[in-house]
């Protein structure tokens, strides 16, 4: 009897510890998000935040239009590069990758996942900036694309492997060539997972600063030509948050908040999409 009481007490204790862990895990998220919101809202509400580009200290107004456009374009081009290639590599891994090449690719992808993000900036600089002779948005896109690749190809491989084998066999039994079975049966069936992986990769890329420093460089003017230096929200946060001028600091915080909202939105979209697919 006594033992039972001890067992129940231990059980309660463990339940309590789990509850404390949950609270401890949730608290930093909440205070961090509150911090970002409180610091960021004044800047977001300032007039011109969404409609004007950077104004230096002493010039009233000013916003982050250049950075919003830059982030969308850099991440957009990066995704255009990374999503098809990443998905193709994912298809390779699941359909043809049970060999030495597949294992090598998986290993490289795992190692890339763990590299510090500044390394991707060095990559982009070496491959495109130093060879072309100027900074450009597209070199940042390439750096981010490489950073996104492992996430996308892993998500694709996992999703493809989940497709029931009977579907694949049914397609082949109907006499369809293998590539058509893959593209028209298997990939559509796995689309939910692929899209989620792509969106998560885009979200991560949007928040990165280090790969942009020596590729996109930054631009205080609105620039849409991908061969020119371009601004980005993450760069605005990084550069302006540490200036002594309060209106520029406000802009930096607001840019940070905008970035978090962008990422949250992407996450929510991914979830909704997956839920719809799963139904």
């Amino acid at each position: 009897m006594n033992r039972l009481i001890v067992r129940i007490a231990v059980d309660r204790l463990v339940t309590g510890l789990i509850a404390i862990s949950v609270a401890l895990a949730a608290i930093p998220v909440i205070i961090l998000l509150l911090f970002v919101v409180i610091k960021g809202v004044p800047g977001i509400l300032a007039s011109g935040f969404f409609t004007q580009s950077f104004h230096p200290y002493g010039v009233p107004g000013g916003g982050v239009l250049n950075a919003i456009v830059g982030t969308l374009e850099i991440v957009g081009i990066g995704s255009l590069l990374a999503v098809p290639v990443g998905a193709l590599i994912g298809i390779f891994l699941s359909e043809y990758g049970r060999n030495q090449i597949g294992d090598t690719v998986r290993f490289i992808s795992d190692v890339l996942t763990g590299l510090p993000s500044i390394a991707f900036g060095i990559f982009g600089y070496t491959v495109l900036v130093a060879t072309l002779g100027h900074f450009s948005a597209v070199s940042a896109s390439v750096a981010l694309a490489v950073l996104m690749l492992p996430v996308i190809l892993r998500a694709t491989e996992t999703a493809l492997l989940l497709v029931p084998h009977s579907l694949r066999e049914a397609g082949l039994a109907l006499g369809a060539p293998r590539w058509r079975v893959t593209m028209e049966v298997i990939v559509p069936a796995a689309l939910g997972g692929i899209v989620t992986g792509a969106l998560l990769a885009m979200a991560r890329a949007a928040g990165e600063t280090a790969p942009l420093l020596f590729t996109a460089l930054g631009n205080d003017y609105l620039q849409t030509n991908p061969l020119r230096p371009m601004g980005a929200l993450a760069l605005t946060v990084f550069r302006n948050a540490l200036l002594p001028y309060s209106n520029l600091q406000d802009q930096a915080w607001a840019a940070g908040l905008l970035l978090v909202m962008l990422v949250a939105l992407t996450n929510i979209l991914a979830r909704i999409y997956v839920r719809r697919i799963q139904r």
Partner: protein
Amino acid sequence: MSRATAEVIPAPPVAKSHRRRFNAGDQVFTGLAYAAALLMIVIAVIFVIALVIPALPAITSFGVGFLTGRVWDPVHLRFGALPAIYGTLVTSAIGILLAFPIGLGAALFLAEEGGLSAIRGPLSFAIELLAAIPSVVIGLWAFFILTPIMRSIVDPFLNHTLGFLPFFRGGASGYGYLTAGVVLAIMVLPIMTALSRDVIRAVPRALREASLALGATNAESIWSVVLPFARVGITGAVLLSLGRALGETIAVTMVIGNSPNISASLFSLGYTLPSVIANEFTEAVGKVYQGALFELALILALITIVVNVLARLLIWRFKGSEPSVA
């Protein structure tokens, strides 16, 4: 999404009979897929070149002494990586030690089914959102809000209660190893929680129900069924989190104190590999100085690779497939 991974049935190699049907489309498609895979290998080669070549001047000047040197003097071109390696390992260890129990506890809660499910969804979402907050934002938050709390509350408390240990001695400025460790704990918490949650979910339900049916309490079934089954996978989650913690740059730089010390006290100021790179990369002139920074990046990459490979191996062994959380 990786919750279903456990039921993955690997596709068996397609039988030769299908290939007999010659198809140009198939050849093109196969070619494309192989080309994409080869691209990955090309990227890796360029990566190695881009990091190793600039590091060569330092590697040839300092040799192995670089790893054991304790002086970092850019003026006289004497460089040693030991304080930064030490700081990187210590802060990451603190981060993992703090994040591990919390992440595991939260994962146990999130992996459970039924009851309180109204909280689980939003909580999972919030913790995943934490992973997406740019690290510079976390750094600024830590700099403005966490350091005063550490200085006036946490550090004095630890000094008062555990001051007999060498780790909690000396004056506390609010910056240093411990504060950086706390920041890292916050940053790896999402990975730790999400990966552990997926691993725990993969524990066959029948096992758990059997244990409960035999009269075990919830705590006992966690201890004697869930954790043993998930042990390897959780170890993998820890190692993956460690990989992330080792490479974290900006947020740590804001609170570590950036001072090349080696000291037992967790209150003392320190330095980490990524912090040195972030601090000095843009102002470094001369091939040897730049080379020293690239060599730090190389050391960091090697440590990260080792940790990640270990983590993947463990998780693979456990799940027979790959976790999809990056």
